[in-house]
């Protein structure tokens, strides 16, 4: 292993480089490196700005900042409607008026949306942007007043920015405004001399076999920190023989498994699939009833702990589906976070339950075949992930021919997505990890 990335970042901050892009696989310590890189800058009293994509991400960074730099203030710039979480440390100063931000030696943090709309009289020495692959180039351009130097850190395999409008006009643009900011920066030849590129090469979060599974979503290699057999979920109560229990039994030896549910003669529901929501809830119920033990790192391998609801996370691509799952969950499980892959980015749980993004999708569109969501879903767990889906997905992928309707000169993202989805499914099929 070479020099730690945060050291290179400290050096970058101290010099005058324009931009540094850090490519990071899931759970490779993005936030850790981002925060570590600030050490010298804080000591030297530089003005530092940090932008994240969501309020949750900002809150998480604030907490971790306070743990890393005890006693150091961080100014959380937010809208008046924002109310900070109850566990916000006292060193986090929530401000809504930009004039309240000190002029020297300050660390200021906010969402891209909030910072982009604010005009700052004094620029910052450097702007660090977390989860930068989630940010459009158009959004990045609203942050130019904040600083003229940037560190962008993020995961290139994950979800591209959500775009709700017709962007035909810019499909062939060399700096397409709807594409992820780091992609625009890395592809622009004029910027190449001024851009430093760094990679994080160790995935700390995921079990060994998951790292090899998700490698298909990335164009650079990375290694697991975990050792084989180190992370697992083990039920201590007997199986009742149902498919749900079989899936739970399989995650003792394999960190991912797919549990299928019959599609039925009439196909899957057009909208919210309540049966699948019930299956997800049933998995939660059985994981807790069977008093599973979990190991999430080397220290727990021989001393596993008992699974608690807070250790479980659930992810599905649609808000309405998430609400249906939340309503189906057994009582006493309010600590279980249920949300979209977009909101899961940057977060982790020992066990994840994921609704496969193609479940119920008989004719996948470009949106459906985009694999960023699948990649996020398959990379939030420390010990195991159970995918739940209608059983048509394998056949749908076999029979569906993706349309290469991208603009001339653009890569075939949909075809690549189809291939990655197929590889993901085949991985489980070949290892007998699809439970019916």
């Amino acid at each position, binding site marked *: 292993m070479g020099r730690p990335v945060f050291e290179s970042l400290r050096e970058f901050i101290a010099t005058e480089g*324009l*931009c540094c892009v850090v490519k990071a696989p899931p759970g490779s310590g993005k936030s850790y490196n981002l925060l570590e890189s600030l050490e010298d800058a804080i000591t030297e009293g530089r003005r530092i700005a940090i932008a994240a994509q969501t*309020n949750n991400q900002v809150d998480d960074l604030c907490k971790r900042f306070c743990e890393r730099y005890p006693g150091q203030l961080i100014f959380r710039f937010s809208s008046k*409607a*924002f*109310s900070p979480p109850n566990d916000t440390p006292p060193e986090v100063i929530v401000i809504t008026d930009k004039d309240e931000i000190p002029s020297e030696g300050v660390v200021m943090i906010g969402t891209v*949306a909030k910072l*982009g*709309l604010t005009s700052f009289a004094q620029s910052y020495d450097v702007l660090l942007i977390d989860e930068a692959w989630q940010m*459009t*180039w*158009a*959004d990045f*351009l*609203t942050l*130019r*007043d904040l600083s*003229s130097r*940037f560190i962008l850190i993020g995961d290139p395999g994950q979800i591209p920015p959500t775009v*709700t*409008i*017709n*962007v*035909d*006009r*810019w*499909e*062939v*643009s*060399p*700096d*397409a*405004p*709807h594409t992820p900011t780091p992609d625009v920066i890395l592809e*622009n030849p*004029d*910027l190449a001399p*001024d851009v430093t590129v760094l990679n994080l090469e160790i995935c700390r979060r995921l079990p060994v076999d998951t790292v090899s599974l998700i490698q298909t979503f990335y164009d650079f290699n990375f290694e697991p920190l975990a050792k084989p057999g180190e992370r697992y979920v083990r039920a201590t109560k007997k199986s009742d023989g149902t498919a749900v229990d079989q899936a739970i039994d399989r995650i003792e030896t394999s960190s991912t498994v797919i549990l299928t549910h019959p599609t039925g003669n009439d196909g899957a529901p*057009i*909208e*919210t699939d309540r049966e699948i929501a019930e299956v997800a809830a049933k998995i939660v119920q059985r994981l807790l009833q069977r008093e599973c033990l979990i190991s999430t790192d080397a220290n727990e391998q021989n001393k596993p702990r008992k699974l608690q609801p807070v250790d479980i996370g659930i992810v599905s691509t649609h*808000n*309405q589906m998430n*609400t*249906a799952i*939340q*309503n189906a969950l057994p009582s006493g499980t309010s600590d279980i976070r249920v949300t979209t892959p977009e909101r899961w980015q940057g977060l982790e749980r020992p066990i994840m339950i994921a609704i496969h993004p193609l479940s119920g999708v008989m004719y996948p569109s470009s949106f459906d075949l985009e694999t960023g969501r699948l990649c996020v879903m398959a990379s939030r767990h420390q010990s195991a992930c159970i995918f739940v889906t209608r059983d048509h997905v394998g056949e749908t992928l076999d029979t569906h021919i993706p349309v290469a309707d991208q603009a001339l*000169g653009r890569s075939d993202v949909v075809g690549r997505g189809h291939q990655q989805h197929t590889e993901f499914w085949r991985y489980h099929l070949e290892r007998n990890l699809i439970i019916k």
Partner: protein
Amino acid sequence: MSESLETIRRLRAWSEGKPTPRGEKVNVHVGDDDDILIVAFLRMGGESRPWGVAFGKPEEKPKILTVAEGRNRSRVGDMMVEFAPVILEHFRHPQHSVEDLSNWESNSHRQVWLPGPTHVEMLHYIALSFARTRWDRDGVETLKALGNLANCLYIEQQRPGQQTVLTAASALRETHVFPASSVRQAHLGYLLGWLQGGRNRETRLAAARAAENISVATVLDPDFERKKIQPLVEEWGRANQDDDEKGRAAAEASVKRSLSPELLRRWELTRDSITHLRSDKRSSNPGLATLVSFSKKEFNRGWGEKALNENEGGDAFWPNPFTDFNTRMAAGGFHQRVADEQKARHYLVHGDRELQREELADGHGIIGTVISVSSGDPEWKIKFSYPELPTTRQGSYLVIAGAPEVRLTVTKIDLQNRVLIAVPQWRNAKRKYGKLGLPSQDQAWKGRALVFLDDQPFGLADRLAGIARRRSDDPNEITNIMRTRQRKHAANDDEGAVVPESEE
């Protein structure tokens, strides 16, 4: 659009045996005869340039232009030089109209109506061919003006909520529910067959099915083109090779005779759609006037100002037909389009309960009863009954349907008990909304069942557009380091579009 809601609507239309009105309001602006130019195109199969064009105002007999050989750049250019002044005059181009383009605010709003999406694509082709041409020929300035207008119209038609470039097929779909699959509803003739094909389901369906067998796109029925017209085109080619002027003229006339009914049918279907929409007894959505006003403003900004600048000898800064190569302009345009999409929803949804149903079915709002109104700090407790699964989250904003400025912030949502806590963002009465604009602490709110919709924060996106476009004087600023690169393409070459087989 909610798929299940649309399925129910279509089943209802099928049960009634005819297309049913989509909602209580019309959300499409249909201008007066003077303000509408109907245009329909034809092109040869496999080609992109126009082979013929029909154009005229709804009350007029359309003018039809064709060329014998649609692949002949020169002949197509001649045809477009003849067509150009009409559409340029329609949009009050300073070189072609006596009306003053600078009076855009008081001028009436001009529209171009086309049969369907393939005809819109022809605007893009015209833009690519002529907007930047350096062709050395008579009328090249007219062609360039046509190319730039076509380009601006093509860009404008992508803007959500615009009322300048309309296609008859989508206007009919936006105003009616047809008992047919989405694919079939792409055909204008099919839609009009359902609307005007008799008095019962059987006759309407038969009329629609008969109509859909005849092409309304920019291409002809391949069999018809191959068997009937290709021989005439070949005849013209032979005459041309022999430099036989009489033979050329005869073939030209024969092609025109064959193409004219095709062009006329496409043009008349569009006119009939306009007539049908005008006879609709429903009133227009009150928000439509605002969208028309935005359309005037945006088309003036996108085209009118540039045409005037060019006329006065300044630099027009015409948009590139391919894309925005300037990175700041592209980013600004992106944010602007987000704002336009939000504006279109905002201005229409409050005046149309059908659109409100759409929003609610998608979870973007609730139907709820105000169960308590605190007398201290303003806070409402709302028990909601629909939808079962709203997407509303803590921190999001809701507005009362019909009163877009009556806004609340959601501070808590309890999905189990279907209760939502929200803080009103107004205090005093908003009288223009009547009973929907009472002071926020008025106890009369208590017990009232209301529709709350997700707010559309278009003001923020508008501001982002301006910020993204802003130029910096610092040469080391990131966007100043990025040079604008235009891709190499025939449309940017001196010779205009690639025409390997042209006589030039």
